[in-house]
């Protein structure tokens, strides 16, 4: 060990010029298998999916039963220092990924990427609405009623409408390295999302869940120049993001009996907006205490100026004039950060950091005359509230290597948060923590970490709460006094020379909101993980993992708008098991992987209202996933591949279970059902290698 350390010290201590003095004239690298030419592998195959369930297609693309053709692969072309690579995943599916990178290393590089992510939410949903020219229309024979049980034409009008959308990401970028000291880079990306999601549309006392069309596009640009100055780097960058929503309004015909003029209703969609930011960041190292000073300064502005809709789409309500035709919204952001790290002694490392974040919403305040759900004017003027906040954080940390095998760290953080227009104007949080790492041997480490934090507020302004119609006893959990204790214990056994590695972690955090009479009053969290991997032999390795999480939260409420008269206790549990095997005989004919994972979640909610206890049914989820992959090395260039997957996913959710379209008298739902599928997917294919599969030392 001492010698290795000495070698490292010497190499690092040697300046580049000294390295250049090493005589390498006989270092001919004659046996080096430099690659010139093309090398790739292409895998093509077909997969049979046993059953159709749209949820199984979430992020995978396998949302229907039957056969799928698929192609994966990657390749590299190298010649005279030019290198181009490509990679394809799931080309035949809606989850495809294509990337291309090229570079003449040290001079320039470029990249292109396209990927899709299918979001598949519900396949069990039904609706009475048809989409036509921007409006969700009821069937011609629809019979409105005051409650859903009066919808005479409901049963004949329901049509299946899946809730799904497709995300697409396209990215192109490049880098030009002008010199060792100067580099320019640029990225442009376009992200799209189109499909259908769920949005409710409300009338006065009723609402309908709508299958809303979404059609979003976001263009983003990221351009920068990087300078290297001595032992430091500086990066000047621009970031711009431009969001475009092709739908400015959501318009629907209400299925409920409505006053004249209020049969077709309109809500605003998410407005077009943009955000631009200029930043300068850098890091400078000095030999003095091996210190590093790093900083970042970023100034940004967000704008939103979508034209407003009218106060109401009801022609029978005289329209008041809008204060202005669009928001002309502006939010300025400032983010500054500076970090200083140093090693004043060989065994002592310190860190000081400060961060400042400001969101200044300078959107003008006006008075607005609301029309309540397109039915009647509120008769009162209401001002918009442009929320702003300033957040700063100071942290100090020291790490001391007390002994070769013992390290002790401690730190203190101070957070300050000032807000406008909210119940709490000034909030602080003090956090103190300590950590001990004991490593008596290179293969064993024990780590304990713990601390406390206290969030204080200058005062909870009940006048502000009352002006917002709030019960003055309510303490919003993100604004409330909070005392937190947390601790984590980790043990790790790991050494490459030993075939076994083992790790266990336990984390606990208790939050007390002791000054809150209404709202969240406590939250206790416990997490643990166990991880075991065993290299049984050169050919076989196995792993086993387990993790769990438990959160118990308590809250108090008041139905009478006075003192607490009910409370609820939430028990959120989640457990995960994973196990697997990799078998790859050194000179064997195959490579086999088996992976199994299981996730079980449940949430129990107990409600005690005026002394009467009630428990909601458990919310549960259960996921079992098994995958077996085998490649049979048929020849030097050809592998036959076999892939078997099984997945079972079930949820029990009282929010949607047995809730048909007309179960709720005042809400027309989409009748979604909890998830429940068992699906097998079996694939066969081949992988063909082009170019040399294995590298051989040159003769």
């Amino acid at each position: 060990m001492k010698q290795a350390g000495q070698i490292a010290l010497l190499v690092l201590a040697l300046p580049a010029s000294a390295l250049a003095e090493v005589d390498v004239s006989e270092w001919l690298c004659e046996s080096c298998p430099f690659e010139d030419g093309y090398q790739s592998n292409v895998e093509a195959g077909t997969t049979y999916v046993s059953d159709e369930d749209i949820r199984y297609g979430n992020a995978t693309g396998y949302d229907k039963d039957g056969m799928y053709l698929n192609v994966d692969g990657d390749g590299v072309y190298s010649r005279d220092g030019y290198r181009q690579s490509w990679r394809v995943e799931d080309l035949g599916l809606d989850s495809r990924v294509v990337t291309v990178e090229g570079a003449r290393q040290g001079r320039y590089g470029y990249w292109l990427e396209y990927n899709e992510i299918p979001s598949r939410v519900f396949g069990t949903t039904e609706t009475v609405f048809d989409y036509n020219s921007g409006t969700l229309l009821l069937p011609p024979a629809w019979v409105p009623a005051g409650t859903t049980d009066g919808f005479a034409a409901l049963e004949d009008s329901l049509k299946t409408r899946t809730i799904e959308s497709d995300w697409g990401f396209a990215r192109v970028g490049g880098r030009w390295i002008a010199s060792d000291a100067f580099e320019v880079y640029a990225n442009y990306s376009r992200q799209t999302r189109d499909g259908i999601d769920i949005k409710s549309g409300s009338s006065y006392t009723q609402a309908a869940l709508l299958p809303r069309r979404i059609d979003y596009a976001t263009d983003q640009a990221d351009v920068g120049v990087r300078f290297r100055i001595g032992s430091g780097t500086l990066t000047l960058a621009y970031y711009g993001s431009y969001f475009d929503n092709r739908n400015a309004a959501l318009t629907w015909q209400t299925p409920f009996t409505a006053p004249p003029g209020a049969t077709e209703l309109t809500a605003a969609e998410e407005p077009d907006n943009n955000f631009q930011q200029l930043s300068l960041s850098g890091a400078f190292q000095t030999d003095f205490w091996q210190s590093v000073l790093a900083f970042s300064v970023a100034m940004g502005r967000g704008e939103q100026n979508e034209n407003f809709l009218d106060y109401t789409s009801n022609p029978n309500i005289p329209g008041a004039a809008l204060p202005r035709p669009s928001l002309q919204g502006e939010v300025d952001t400032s983010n500054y950060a500076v970090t200083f790290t140093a090693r004043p002694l060989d065994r002592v490392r310190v860190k000081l950091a400060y961060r400042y974040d400001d969101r200044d919403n300078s959107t003008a305040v006006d008075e607005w005359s609301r029309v309540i759900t397109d039915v009647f004017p509120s008769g009162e003027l209401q001002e918009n509230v442009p929320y702003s906040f300033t957040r700063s954080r100071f942290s100090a940390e020291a790490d001391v290597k007390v002994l070769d095998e013992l390290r002790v760290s401690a730190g203190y953080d101070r957070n300050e948060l000032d807000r406008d227009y909210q119940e709490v104007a000034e909030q602080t949080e003090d956090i103190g923590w300590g950590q001990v790492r004991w490593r008596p041997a290179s293969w064993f480490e024990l780590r304990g970490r713990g601390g406390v934090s206290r969030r204080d507020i200058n005062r909870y302004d009940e006048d502000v709460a009352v002006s917002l119609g709030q019960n003055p006893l309510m303490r919003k959990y993100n604004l409330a006094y909070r005392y937190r204790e947390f601790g984590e214990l980790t043990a790790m056994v790991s050494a490459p020379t030993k075939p076994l590695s083992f790790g266990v972690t336990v984390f606990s955090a208790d939050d007390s909101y002791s000054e809150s009479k209404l709202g969240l009053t406590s939250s206790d969290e416990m997490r643990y993980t166990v991880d075991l991997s065993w290299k049984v032999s050169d050919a076989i390795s196995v792993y086993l993992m387990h993790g769990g999480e438990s959160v118990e939260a308590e809250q108090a409420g008041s139905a009478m708008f006075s003192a607490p008269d009910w409370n609820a206790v939430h028990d959120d549990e989640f457990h995960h098991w994973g196990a697997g095997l990799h078998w790859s005989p050194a000179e064997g004919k195959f490579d086999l992987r088996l992976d199994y994972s299981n996730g079980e979640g449940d949430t129990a909610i107990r409600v005690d209202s005026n002394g009467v206890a009630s428990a909601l049914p458990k919310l549960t989820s259960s996921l079992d996933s098994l995958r077996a992959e085998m490649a049979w090395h048929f020849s030097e260039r050809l592998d036959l591949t076999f892939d078997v997957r099984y997945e079972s996913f079930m949820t029990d959710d009282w929010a949607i279970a047995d809730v048909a379209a007309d179960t709720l008298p005042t809400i027309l739902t989409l009748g979604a059902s909890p998830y429940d599928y068992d699906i097998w997917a079996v694939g066969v294919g081949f992988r063909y290698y082009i170019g040399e599969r294995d590298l051989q030392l040159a003769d």
Partner: protein
Amino acid sequence: MKPHALTRRILAQLVLLVALITSPGLLAQSDDSEPEYSRKGADSCFACHDDQATLAVFRSKHAIRQDSRTPFGHGQLQCEACHGPGGEHAGRVRRGQERAPITAFSSGSTLPVMEQNQFCTACHQDDLGFGWHGGAHDMEEVACSDCHSSHAATDPVLVSSMQAQVCFDCHQQQRTQAMKPFAHPVREGKMDCGSCHSAHGGSSDTRLTQQATNDTCFGCHAEQRGPYLWEHAPVSENCGDCHDPHGSNHPGMLSLRAPMLCQSCHSQSGHPSIAQDASGLPDATPSPLLLGQSCLNCHSQVHGSNHPSGSKLMR
């Protein structure tokens, strides 16, 4: 260890430290025993290390002859650029004698992490960015090689579909959370940790890719950015006030089930915060406050409304 022995040991360490700090010529004094480089460079190494995992470096970006910055570039030190002088390691070994070690990069390496990393940062300093310094990975002394495979033709941590498994080796609690029924598509390999976190940089508490939590979320969810005419205060401040981005038992990755989540902050006059229990289920008196989308059955614009009549987030 007895207390006085411990004290002696600490004092000895302190004396050694002071000597190291105050003796700039210490390294120079050790020139006599300076390790030597091998006689033939990589050709010496490959006499023994000819396995595919080692040779894969020739399919990586580290072995481009025409790029003089790479270890195998013209005039460079080949294997010994990273592994250090290997003269003694490659030399003859008498029977029974242990071969001299060479710098290794792995969890079992005897070389301190900071020194391992300096081999990498000698060339990759720019890749660290400003946020590495003082970040959790830096302070916890995570080695570059803990995440990166420098010999591999394709470094798994740089490929979206593989990256999370590398991160999960240490971040095991997040691996459990990614398995939850409502989570970003990390388990499926369609999103990586780097979509939100910058392992090398970022000055925010959790090393996010953007300056603030919300800015990071808006990278994909720009429709929520606003500013809206009618803002929902916590949305403007921190998406994490309501959402658990690593996964949740609840749809929308909410931290609690609605309506209780909303009732943690809202108890309005004229809109009482009524306890929602089993009496609101379909087999009793179905409650529009409990079932379907709960509060969002009416207040659908929970992220903000740009409608002039949208102050209650219903338009």
